[in-house]
């Protein structure tokens, strides 16, 4: 009995949660930017700390709801702790949403940077990673005129998550980045943020998520434009929904929009003797969502023909984009599609032979693209309308 009592006492006094901190003691960090000081090569660590009081519903203050803090240090952790010298709250990184890295950092290699985030216990694995193109990473965090959210970090997080509604950009979280960097036969593509002028010429700057940054292992190799990014995403098969514009088969200089509902992509490696080749099968289900041309279909047959023509055009567009991006990746010698991984899965023996100089082999492999598009309906309206003349 006495022993049991002592054991129970130990349960209460020898363990338990130790890091007690009241909410007003912590500073919730919503986003992080890492730059490199060009003069001495130190890291410039910028964190965006939320100011809860400014978000209070009872007496909201007009001030900015966040605080930007920049510190420099030889290591990331050093810089993180230096923020305590200039900020009165201890940084709390578990709710950090985005890590933005500058181009220079990316060119030097990201693994050495991300190590401090992944090794420490605070930042979560599914934080988004982005590359700042043509600007410093911390400048992107400062801009808050773009979206609805008052906090740039929330804006960035939502924009990155909305990648699933469009095809022109890509996104990656830290865990996936690690997986693709450390895995053999595949290289990551990271989302790119850039600062642009607003279209209405109001001279306000906005942040835009556009294109992708191609990595060779963990080093930035180059950028993909929006069309190439679309090609990359067709091959990677992670599209949930998106819009494709096709020239109208009925009327020149008019367009038809197709919404992608479902798609699937498969990389099929083939080995014949010493020759390695790849076939990429892409299938897409879509629905017509916009039809600019005005005309009249006499019967349903015409509608079917119209849809079949659209399917052909859609296939052509996808095929072109995929071809272009594969050629570009070959130029960078980075296998962003996971050709090597597919080969490894199907022909492990062949993979063992080629894996050591796979990047150069990848640049030479032949490939073919098969696209099958199925446009299932013309939307809620049957055909185009034409006013009676």
């Amino acid at each position, binding site marked *: 009995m006495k022993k049991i009592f002592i054991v129970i006492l130990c349960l209460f006094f020898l363990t*338990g949660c130790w890091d007690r901190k009241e909410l007003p003691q912590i500073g919730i960090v919503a986003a992080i930017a890492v730059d490199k000081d060009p003069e001495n090569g130190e890291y410039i660590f910028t964190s965006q700390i939320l100011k809860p*009081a400014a978000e209070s519903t009872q007496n909201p203050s007009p001030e900015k709801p966040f605080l930007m803090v920049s510190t420099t240090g030889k290591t990331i952790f050093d810089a993180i702790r230096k923020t305590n010298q200039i900020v009165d709250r201890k940084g709390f990184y578990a709710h950090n949403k985005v890590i933005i890295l500058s181009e220079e950092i990316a060119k030097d290699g990201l693994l050495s940077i991300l190590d401090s985030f992944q090794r420490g216990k605070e930042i979560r694995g599914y934080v988004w990673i982005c590359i700042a193109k043509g600007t410093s990473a911390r400048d992107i965090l400062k801009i808050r005129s773009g979206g609805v959210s008052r906090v740039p970090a929330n804006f960035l997080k939502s924009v990155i998550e909305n990648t699933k509604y469009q095809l022109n950009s890509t996104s990656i979280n830290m865990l996936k980045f690690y997986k693709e960097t450390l895995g053999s036969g595949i290289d990551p593509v990271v989302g790119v943020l850039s600062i642009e002028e607003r279209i209405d010429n109001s001279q306000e700057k906005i942040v835009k998520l556009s294109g992708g940054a191609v990595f060779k292992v963990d080093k930035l190799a180059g950028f993909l434009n929006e069309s190439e990014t679309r090609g990359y995403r067709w091959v990677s098969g992670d599209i949930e929904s998106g819009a494709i514009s096709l020239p109208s088969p009925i009327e020149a200089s008019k367009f038809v929009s197709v919404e992608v509902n479902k798609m699937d992509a498969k990389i099929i490696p083939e080995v014949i003797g010493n020759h390695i080749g790849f076939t990429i099968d892409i299938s897409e289900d879509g629905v017509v969502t916009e039809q600019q041309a005005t005309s009249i279909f006499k019967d349903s047959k015409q509608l079917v023909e119209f849809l079949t023509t659209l399917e052909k055009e859609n296939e052509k567009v996808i095929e072109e984009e995929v071809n272009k991006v594969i050629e570009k990746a070959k130029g960078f010698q980075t296998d962003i599609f996971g050709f090597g991984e597919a080969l490894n899965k199907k022909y492990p023996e062949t993979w063992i032979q080629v894996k050591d100089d796979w990047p150069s082999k990848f640049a030479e492999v032949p490939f073919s693209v098969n696209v099958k598009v199925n446009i299932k309906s013309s939307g809620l309206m049957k055909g185009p309308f034409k006013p009676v003349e």
Partner: protein
Amino acid sequence: MVKKFRYPKKIESLLKISQQEKDSNRKEVPSQEKESVQNANMIDKNLENNISAIKNILGLNDDVKYREIDVFCQRTINVFIVFIDGLVKEKYIKDHIVKSLMEPDFINSNSIELDLLTSIKKRILSTATLQETQAMDVAVEYILAGETVIFIDGYDSALSVSTQGYEARKVEEPDTESSVRGPREGFNEVLKVNTSLIRRKIINPNLVFEGMKLGKQTKTNIRIGYIKGIANPKVIEEVKNRLGRIDTDVILESGYIEQFIEDHPYSIFPTIANSEKPDKIAAKILEGRVAIFCDGTPFVLTVPHLFVETLQVGEDYYSRPYLSSLIRLLRLLCLFLTIASPGLYIALTTYHHEMVPALLLTSMAAAEEKVPFPTFIEAMLMAVVFEILREAGVRMPRPVGAAISIVGALVIGEAAVQAGFVSAPMVIVIALTGICGFVVSALNDANILSRFLIMLLAGALGLYGILMGFLMILGHMCSLRSFGTPYLTPQAPIVWSEWKDSIIRLPLWFLKSRPQSITWQESKKQSLQNRPQSPNLMKGEE
């Protein structure tokens, strides 16, 4: 005399020797007393002696009324009537005792050959009940209980007629247990009314109400109700044993009895149930439980009492099973919330910020920003304030009720948040805690105590502490028994057949047998063909 409480078994065995000594001492003393009392207190044949004896005992009392009557029967015989004003129906005494005795016809009747006492007993008194006693102290007890006692000159026994007629509350809807569907009646303070309410529901000769008196000063009437042949005889025996062991001056309410006979006097969980509703008590008696009725209180006790009963309400059985089952689950959730929610809030805001969604954390941080206290202190303060408000709400005189709600709602809820003393989320959490507590109010003391325990542990150890706290409470609950039945039956130990009516309730025609953990006698309670069937199918069977 030493009051004998029921100690827990261990302590009791330690104290065994001294206890036995005390017991033996106690037994001897009353027997001696009784003899001497008996000698002195027999009713005398001489009426004058009896009158002076009665006046000796009750003479100081203003409310004791005497009435002397001369009965003419061959000769004039003095008859003396004693009763207590206010306890009796005077009209009843007038019509059935005084008038009968003075009836002129009586003189001319043929009863002359009969002995006077016998003829009074058998022919004259037109009352429903009649008792005869030869002991003066018994006669006095009858008088004090509201009966009318008749002394007759020349006879050494007194007749007692039950003429009780005192003011009592009507059978009303109980405030503590109101229902939307189901009978509205509730017990009142009169024992015989309470048992009659059960009799009206269970018309069965096997329904037994055994009587006994408890309390040396109060002589409170107790009735043990059960159905012979259904209730477990061992439980009945145990109830009688434990009641018999009570040696106290005062039993004013069934709560006194509960505290003297419960299995675990140190536990925060009640192992004896109470209710004000006859339908609920009848249902429990029919399940094989034993009910203890106590005069002077509308609260009737039932044993054995299981934990699941606190999640059950009579209405569950009257309404259809879907909602009943959902609401039982809801009550379980409320039990969890009322115990854990302040603790969870403390743990989440001081240790586990990463578990709170970011937006929620921001607004919680915004609310806590200006609060000068640590969250733990804040929660403790608010929980105590809530208990104060609740207690004030119960105790306050009705007319000032509005003041409490204004003070409670406006000052605590509104002004304190505005002033920044407490955060709005904390007010929400405490309000939720309080509201949920009312849902399972049968466990009130367990709720409040374990809530503070969980808050302490959460403040010191975080979620780990909450886990430990719940393990402790659960372990304790597993160790409890109520009159031989494990407290957590049918969940621990698992009795699958009883899950049909525990935290969920299946349709009534599913519940074919009585709970095995309460009684094993007459386990089948209804036929197997009760399931409602479509008329077509029934025709086909014909």
